[in-house]
């Protein structure tokens, strides 16, 4: 791995012991995770615990005529069998989704996608529960399914959502942004207009750990304890409170260690509710863990946008406007995880990193007989789709103008002095300096040399491609004035308590699924109050232990919760300063903060450390007038804006002309996420996201046959990349701090997933230039590349 970074020799040192927070530091959680001592939901074992298995629909669309559970109930080890009818009696057959739609917990009237939950069994062990499913006799009346999204609104299309009052078609919602007329005017006077249909196929987050829960309802206390695979424990608790009518203080949601989320663990799934009902019905703790196929066929998918992109420019390459029309497949229930006022997530940033005159998007979303979801799969709420659209269409323009794609981008970047920059769709980019990032990527790549090599290879009939993408992300949702999920504002709480001996505990409302919160947040606190990261305990994931907040997704932890952590530490530091002034018998103004201690200005010999102050705060002797004992603070941080990280990615591919196999030879990623807290963790996030990008660009897709059978029901069918498909990542960075974030940090969790697919696709299309190819849709499997080479590039859906 090549990295333009501080020298590796200084790598980790003893940063965890130093009072200075930022820098490389091994992850505090890794000794636990690497030694197999992590505690995941499936590790929870409770006395008397029973196991739950779910019966799922084999059909994509069918009326449920009858469900006979008698044989299953009589099976050995079975404690309860519950159907939709049972839940109906409890008022629990339906539940709200994160997008203000409803979703069936267990089907009562119809099944609307293959894999939908129909009934569940609770038994002594998972084998007995699973075996009993075979004994449930369901009679279905099979209906025509709606699978082809383009036919969903046809007048004769079967109606999927007849559960919704007055619904007569499969229309889900319409959404638009930008100015249609202004954009039309710009297009009318442009020298060049390029149009391209672009599909972002349905993909699945496929975390290593599937979803699951252990529910333990104590009927005497009236208290529910729920361990579950959730990225948003507080939001889930409030929703359970609303759905189940239990008060929040009687619900404890615990997200233990999580084996990857990627947005898959944001929604509430029927299985969680089933586990709760199972525990209430049997009076015993109940565990539900879905298997791999259940995870792939029934939980939140991502993408599934069919986009028509149009770009208008002058002959010399000044981009004037971008316009798009999107058909969005939302599956059987609209379970999209996004702030409610943003039904298309943050797709509105499809104008990218360019200073243009006009933009317009019109979107139509429809229901189909496919799994619900549309989760924020490492996509910052649909920015993946937006960046893919703009970076693909800009490349199409470059081809049309016969201009180098790097040059075209450089020519159109928003300039540093234009920030804060308001886009034509109303987003206020906080800060950015794009050209140095782009130049650095080109330098690492040796861009000019690569183009020379490509020319030589082309002359010999070899296929080599160079692809660029430049992205601006919008993360850290979000300001509560316009961002909420089901009425819950997207602010985050944080509590910091310094113990008498100067060790500390910080309590977060967000929850790691592998991002390294236990390290990053300790470093933020360390940076602010000078206590070494090793002495800071990070508590998260348990609603009884942590303040309210909306959880970890959309790269929001550092921009929102990270800001909360910095500010709560500053509150503690302010109080520490008051105490220090008493200890040193000087005024507050006479003190200066030198990492880890307060010193009398001009007299470094007179100083007290944060540890000494902590002891004094809890110890004997009077404190200054009006200062309470203890050293702790809490905060709820409401961000004033999103943060806008950016990055320049360059991908080099080679294609075997005989077999059409794509080999990613090199990948250069230069990221700007503002202030860098732990560069090692940032690189880890980037490496993972880039790997994800290779998967989506080259192999991943959840597809269906015409009957609605999911063809990606196992990891043999739904391919995710391995180490062999990815090159050694070459990373670099620039730093443009966020002006409104207390430490200038922007999120980075999803940057690479957002930015990499267009770089790879652009590289493949570039390689195929001798064949006259201008576009080919993902996933670029050998067969699809071969089709493209023959002029037969067809959309995957």
């Amino acid at each position: 791995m090549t990295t333009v970074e501080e020298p590796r020799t200084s790598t980790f040192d003893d940063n965890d012991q130093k009072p200075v927070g930022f820098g490389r530091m091994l992850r505090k959680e890794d000794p636990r995770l690497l030694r197999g001592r992590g505690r995941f939901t499936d590790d929870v074992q409770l006395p008397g615990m029973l196991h739950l298995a779910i019966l799922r629909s084999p059909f994509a669309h069918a009326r449920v005529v009858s469900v006979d559970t008698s044989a299953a109930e009589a099976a050995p080890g079975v404690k309860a069998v519950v159907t939709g009818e049972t839940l109906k009696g409890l008022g629990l057959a339906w539940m709200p989704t994160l997008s203000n739609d409803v979703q069936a917990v267990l089907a009562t009237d119809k099944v609307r996608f293959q894999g939908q939950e129909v009934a569940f069994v609770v038994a002594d062990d998972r084998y007995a529960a699973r075996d009993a499913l075979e004994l449930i006799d369901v009679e279905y009346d099979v209906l025509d399914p709606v699978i082809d999204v383009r036919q969903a609104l046809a007048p004769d299309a079967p109606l999927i959502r007849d559960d919704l009052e007055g619904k007569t078609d499969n229309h889900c919602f319409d959404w638009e942004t930008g100015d249609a007329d202004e954009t039309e005017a710009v297009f009318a006077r442009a020298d060049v207009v390029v149009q391209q249909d672009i599909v972002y196929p349905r993909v699945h987050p496929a975390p290593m750990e599937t979803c699951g829960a252990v529910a333990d309802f104590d009927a005497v206390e009236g208290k529910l304890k729920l361990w579950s695979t959730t990225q948003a424990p507080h939001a889930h608790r409030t929703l359970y409170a609303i759905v189940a009518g239990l008060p929040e203080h009687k619900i404890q949601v615990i997200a233990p260690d999580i084996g990857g989320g990627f947005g898959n663990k944001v929604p509430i799934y029927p299985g969680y509710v089933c586990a709760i009902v199972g525990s209430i019905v049997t009076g015993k703790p109940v565990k539900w863990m879905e298997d791999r196929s259940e995870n792939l066929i029934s939980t939140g998918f991502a993408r599934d946008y069919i986009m028509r992109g149009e770009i208008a420019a002058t002959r010399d390459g000044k981009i004037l406007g971008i316009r798009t029309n999107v058909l969005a497949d939302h599956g059987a229930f609209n379970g999209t995880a996004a702030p409610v006022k943003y039904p298309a997530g943050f797709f509105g940033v499809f104008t990218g990193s360019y200073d243009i005159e006009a933009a317009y998007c019109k979107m139509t979303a429809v229901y189909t007989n496919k799994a619900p979801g549309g989760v924020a799969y490492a996509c910052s709420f649909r920015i993946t789709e937006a960046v893919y659209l703009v970076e693909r269409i800009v490349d199409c323009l470059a081809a049309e103008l016969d201009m180098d794609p790097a040059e075209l981008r450089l020519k159109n970047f928003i300039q540093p002095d234009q920030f804060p920059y308001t886009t034509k769709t109303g987003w206020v980019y906080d800060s950015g300096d794009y050209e140095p990032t782009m130049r650095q990527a080109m330098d690492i790549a040796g861009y000019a040399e690569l183009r020379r090599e490509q020319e030589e290879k082309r002359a010999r009939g070899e296929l080599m491609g160079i692809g660029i993408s430049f992205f601006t992300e919008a993360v850290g949702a979000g300001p509560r004035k316009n961002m909420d999920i089901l009425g819950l504002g997207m602010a985050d709480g944080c509590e910091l308590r310094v113990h008498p001996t100067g060790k500390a505990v910080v309590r977060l409302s967000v929850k790691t699924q592998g991002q390294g919160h236990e390290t990053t947040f300790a470093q933020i606190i360390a940076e602010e109050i000078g206590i070494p990261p090793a002495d800071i305990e990070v508590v998260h994931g348990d609603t009884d232990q942590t303040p309210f907040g909306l959880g970890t997704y959309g790269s929001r932890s550092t921009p929102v919760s990270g800001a909360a952590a910095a500010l709560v530490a500053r509150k503690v530091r302010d109080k520490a300063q008051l105490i220090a002034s008493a200890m040193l018998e000087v005024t507050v103004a006479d003190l200066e903060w030198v990492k880890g201690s307060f010193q009398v200005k001009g007299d470094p010999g007179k100083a007290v450390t944060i540890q000494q102050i902590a002891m004094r705060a809890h110890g004997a002797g009077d404190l200054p007038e009006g200062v309470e004992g203890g050293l702790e603070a809490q905060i709820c941080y409401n961000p004033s804006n999103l943060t806008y990280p950016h990055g320049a990615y360059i991908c080099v591919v080679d294609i075997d002309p005989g077999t059409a196999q794509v080999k990613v030879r090199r990948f250069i990623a230069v990221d700007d996420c503002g202030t860098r807290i732990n560069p090692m963790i940032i690189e880890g996030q980037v490496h993972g996201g880039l790997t994800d990008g290779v998967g989506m660009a080259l192999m991943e897709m959840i597809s269906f046959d015409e009957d609605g059978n999911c063809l990606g029901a196992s990891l043999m069918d739904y391919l995710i990349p391995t180490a062999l498909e990815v090159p050694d990542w070459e990373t670099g960075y620039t730093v443009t701090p966020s002006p409104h974030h207390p430490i200038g940090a922007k999120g980075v969790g999803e940057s690479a997933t957002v930015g990499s697919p267009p770089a790879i696709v652009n590289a493949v299309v570039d390689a195929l230039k001798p064949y006259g190819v201008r576009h080919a849709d993902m996933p670029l499997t050998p067969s699809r590349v071969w089709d493209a080479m023959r002029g037969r590039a067809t959309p995957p859906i």
Partner: protein
Amino acid sequence: MQVPAPFEYERATSVDQAIGLLERLGSSARLVAGGHSLLPMMKLRLANFDYLIDINPLHTELGYIRFAGEGAGGEVRIGAMTRHRELLESDELAAAFPIFRDAERVIADPIVRNRGTLGGSLCQADPSEDLSAVCTTLDASCVIRGPGGAERVVTMEDFHVGPYETAVGDGEMLTEVRFPLRPGGGSAYEKVERRAGDWAVVSAGAAVWLAGDGTIADARVGLAAVGPNTTGIPEISAALRGREPAEDLYEQAGAIAARSCDPATDQRGSADYKRHLADELTRRTLRTAVARARS
């Protein structure tokens, strides 16, 4: 966790005891070798059996690569329980039949290769099974043992009856696969996959035997994932025999391969593309096999 339906399990103590159990239990019983084809199907409940007879204890008896005789008339005998990993790592085997190492490098992943067996691969009779293509290419024959120690030997053509169907009867077991050793031989294998460890989109094996004058004495091509069975293509052998190795000859062979196979469009690729690969990979493997035969 995916869980199979309940089944009874017994560890075999000898080949004949295993065959005795099979005879007694009939079609409700199955042998489990590496388990890497059988168990996934059972976990997905695509297949349910009442009894599993574990033949892994027979690895000592049936896990071997033996050379019997030298040169013409000699053969290599490989026990049915020989694991992918053993086939991959055997230098002797790679020297005699480089196609084995070529193929084993691209079959599944180390975890599967540590357990999966030659016998299991052939008996699974999946049309995409790489070792079936290798055995077809090398003109192997299969030793099937039945009740009372009765043995019969069948060619690969006769062994594969259809997709997932072999000549092995209910009370029988595959014990050994035999590969004739012929002078002047070279062989190679190529596979196109969507991702490392994935099943083949298409794969092809080729073996050639050169006469003293450098012409092709005999040649065979075996394809996987292009039809219901992995079968050799006699027309290619006929077209190559007696000819001087050359590019246009490989092209001719490739064209025959493309038109002789019967691939289906699926998630791995279109039928057209697979047909093209049959052509492309036939040419590539013949080229390599000839180069190896010459060196």
